[in-house]
């Protein structure tokens, strides 16, 4: 693997794509829904919550947890696919 720069490059590129996609969601749920567009989202209700407020104090945190586990799953798969996993 380490001797094959082409394959290594492809692995790294896929890794960066995963990171980009996940960090985009990370930005969207917190800085987007919780801060920048909070007023707009507060027009909508989510049970007893205003939606924007829910994202700022609850939803974003749940999303963060889910994001990390998606990352763990994706990377474990990617590691196996490129044969760079540890076991």
């Amino acid at each position, binding site marked *: *693997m*380490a001797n094959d720069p082409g394959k*290594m490059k492809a*692995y*790294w590129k896929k*890794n960066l794509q995963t*990171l980009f996609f*996940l*960090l985009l969601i*990370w930005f969207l749920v*917190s*800085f987007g829904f*919780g*801060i*920048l567009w*909070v007023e707009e989202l*507060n027009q909508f209700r*989510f*049970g*007893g*919550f*205003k939606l924007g*407020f*829910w994202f*700022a*104090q*609850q939803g*974003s*945190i*749940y999303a*963060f*947890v889910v*994001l*990390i*586990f998606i*990352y*763990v799953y994706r*990377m*474990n798969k990617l*590691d196996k696919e490129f044969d*760079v*996993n*540890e*076991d």
Partner: protein
Amino acid sequence: MDILTWTYILVGLSFTLYIGIAIWSRAGSTKEFYVAGGGVSPLANGMATAADWMSAASFISMAGIISFAGYDGSVYLMGWTGGYVLLALLLAPYLRKFGKFTVPDFVGDRYYSNTAKVVAVICALFISFTYVAGQMRGVGIVFSRYLEVPIEWGVVIGMCIVFFYAVLGGMKGITYTQVAQYCVLIFAYMVPAIFVSMQLTGNPVPQFGLGGELADGTALLDKLDGVLAELGFAEYTSGRKGVMDVFMITLALMVGTAGLPHVIVRFFTVPKVKDARLSAGYALVFIAILYTTAPAIAAFGIYNAINSTSEKEISSLPVWVSNWQKTNLIAVDDKNGDGKIQYLADPVTNELTIDRDIMVLASPEIAELPNWVVGLVAAGAMAAALSTAAGLLLVISTSVSRDLFKTFRPEISEKKELRIARIAAAGAVLLAGYFGVNPPGFVAQVVAFAFGLAAASFFPVIIMGIFSSRINKEGAIAGMISGLIFTLAYIIYFKFISPEMNTADHWWFGVSPEGIGSIGMFLNFLVCIVVSRFTPAPPQSVQDMIQEIRIPRGAGQAVDH
């Protein structure tokens, strides 16, 4: 049994547990002392990270801050959790693969320079010391409030406990005590929250109770908005800070979290790269349990506090009000002499002052829970303060023994290094204790800025060290120094030199000193990239190392070389 007896019993039991664990897991080698031997399971490491991370301030004060800040309190909720996404995706796996013991280790190797390493050590020591002094003070306050001893004695007791298991056990002892401390603190936090949620909304899950309905059928948050508006306060669910400021503070807290040395070092303790990723996920689950409950406690607390005092006869206030009046956390002043309390936004006519810490500390009494729950909350607060203090002390002692001493005297034996690490830990405990007893006026203020400083110094250099192979030592050193100095100067100017100027009109781009670490971070990135472009690329051996840390295979355990 009364509250004090229960407190002594529960706190005593929890301390016995911690000390027992410390003796069972004491460190025998430098590797055990620095990274717990590198064999901690991801689940245990996640719990330990959560306890390490959640300080006395998270446990006692955060809910109260949100009670009074409403929506604006979201900066802490998002800021102190979102950083774990950055940590899991951008830092933890690569630093684990790198496979040494400390952040300065990485900076020193990646930037092939002892100067860069020393700059990193100074940043680490500075951040950790400001943070730990605040923790020791927190330990003292908790002790004095619950055990009714003077604050000084509280600090001394706390020092003895931390001394015992941090100095003896090193990272190994700390890790397993932190697992126990997490269990104690989360149980203590959740029990009152669940009962209060049941009482107010009939829903036992506080996270749902926050969005639940009160007995009269209106949603809790809508009711709160209305009540606060009537008293002249801003609505609970809308913000008062500028959008730009909220954005930047949240960013600084997130990035700062990912750059804190005592958090990063936890990911050196797991066996594999895979485990580092997973354990960041577990850590965030354990943290999120508390962080999604805190806003519920905040809203329940402020609603209950207003409901049971506003426009009520002073002679017939509930017992918890008079209980906490003794500790000066609640003050009543019947200014207009009508025998009733008016809680108002206008400070001239307001007759009730409530300390923010009440929201967590008094919640068992407000909910009329049995006395043992109060004792439990005391044990939980203590666990939160001690676990964070211990983690920080370890970073300080490692920085001294390994990053400073070993770097310049590489020939010392492992036994000697371990002794130096222990002496450094002992020295750090004493120094932290001194600051806990005699807090310099600036400590409380500076703790909040430790995040900004971590964001502006470490984060960019570590990220670019992994994701770019062109960034060189000149860029890294210039970047760290400029980020740190810029952030420090901005904070010192607005907080200490001209505090009267500390208003939104004078801030750059409307960013408060709390959020300036974000700008410092961008500056660090910029300086680093520009300087690197005009100076030679890193040598081939470093380029190879960068390629090496990007793939998981061959991590092995953290090694000393």
